């Protein structure tokens, strides 16, 4: 490696090169470098929303694509997500202040009996990156916890996650209870988790199964937009 390659001074890069370097740093899971890059772009007058979408989400899209294609694996994705989280931590309060566009609101949680939250946390982060407000209920959620959150938060979307074959049927318990209470059609229901598939999503009455965080974001955008359009025509 040449000396020039060893010492990249982020503040000396122009905007395009800095964003490109941030893509590389996200890919390599370099949290401190991402935080530095975000602060430099803020100092240069970039809006928080522009930094989020162009530098962070843009970089995570590459990570997501390479994960889907089997080039990157879970540990690397987690490191990249951790780096993005560092950037988001700086941007989040500023996004609220500067009135960034809001795509919708999601309540998300891992189902009862299940403590696995890696996938759920990735979805939460990418949904926030895409402009959704996310209320994360955490792990091991009983149907009552979901219903209380739907009542209190009035989201557009309910997201449920499960990693275990033994816990994934609980999603149907939640959906069936929503049907019983006449609330099912008030929300878009997205489900995800390693043992799930599209057929399972359909069988339990979810609106969609999302195989990864990127698909969750795209599906959420499409269904929220459709829901709003339907609302407008009624």
């Amino acid at each position, binding site marked *: 490696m040449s000396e020039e390659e060893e010492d990249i001074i982020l503040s000396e890069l122009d905007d395009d090169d800095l964003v490109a370097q941030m893509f590389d740093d996200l890919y390599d899971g370099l949290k401190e470098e991402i935080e530095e890059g975000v602060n430099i772009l803020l100092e240069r007058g970039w809006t928080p929303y522009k930094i989020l979408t162009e530098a962070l989400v843009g970089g995570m899209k590459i990570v997501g694509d390479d994960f889907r294609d089997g080039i990157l694996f879970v540990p690397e994705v*987690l490191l990249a997500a951790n780096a993005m989280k560092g950037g988001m931590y700086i941007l989040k309060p500023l996004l609220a202040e500067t009135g960034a566009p809001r795509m919708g609101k999601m309540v998300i949680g891992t189902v009862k009996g299940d403590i696995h939250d890696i996938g759920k946390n990735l979805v939460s982060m990418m949904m926030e990156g895409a402009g959704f407000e996310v209320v994360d209920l955490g792990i091991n959620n009983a149907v009552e916890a979901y219903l209380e959150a739907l009542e209190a938060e009035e989201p557009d979307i309910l997201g449920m996650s499960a990693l*275990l*074959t*033994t816990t994934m049927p609980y999603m149907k318990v939640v959906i069936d209870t929503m049907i019983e209470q006449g609330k099912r059609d008030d929300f878009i229901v997205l489900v995800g988790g390693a043992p799930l*598939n599209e057929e*399972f999503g359909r069988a339990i009455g979810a609106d969609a199964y999302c195989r990864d965080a990127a698909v969750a974001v795209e599906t959420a955008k499409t269904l929220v937009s459709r829901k709003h359009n339907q609302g407008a025509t009624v």
Partner: protein
Amino acid sequence: MLPETLWAARNAPRCAMIPDDETLTEAGLALTGARARLLLVACGALAREIIALKEMNGWDHVDLVCLPAILHNTPDRITERVAETVTAHRDRYDRIFVVYADCGTGGQLWEKCRELGVEMIPGPHCYSFFEGNTAFAARSEDEITTFYLTDFLARQFDAFVWKPLGLDRHPQLLDTYFGHYEKLVYLAQSEDDALTEKAREAATRLGLSFERRFTGYGDLATQLAKQART
């Protein structure tokens, strides 16, 4: 000690045909025997226990083929691989029995077996049927923060857990993966002090408390005995 475990311990040299754990992990086990009445299509992680049961019970009419145990880490590939193996061998056997639990396939393996007209062992995972599916299910609500190892997984902890999760390269991810776990339960198929220590060491590395439960072969023994009889 349960009879099958005692037998396996006393007759270890006869089981010398079993490949080492690395081979069972990466390649599985090639078909044993040429043609028998019953073929077991199994996970490589179960090869030792199945061969021990086969030899102990004199099941000469039972052949065995094992898929690579590492499929455990990519459950989305299990159903297809099992189906291919069943299809490749079905003309040569009266019956085929699939020695996999659901193993994270989300019911797809069960559905595929039904479609192929073959039976499989019930239960969510091998650690469930080793403990006994009924007992495992009864405990499950109280053990959601428990991580399980079997004999095979204790021996192959690095290959199945530590390295695939990247903890050898990125130890800072430990809390991301195991932050909600509290206990490691080693469901032991054998009485092996060295292996118990290995399992205990795994618990320490993961920052979890440790418990050992001797299970023997559990439902695996009863299910295979039932298949071998019919």
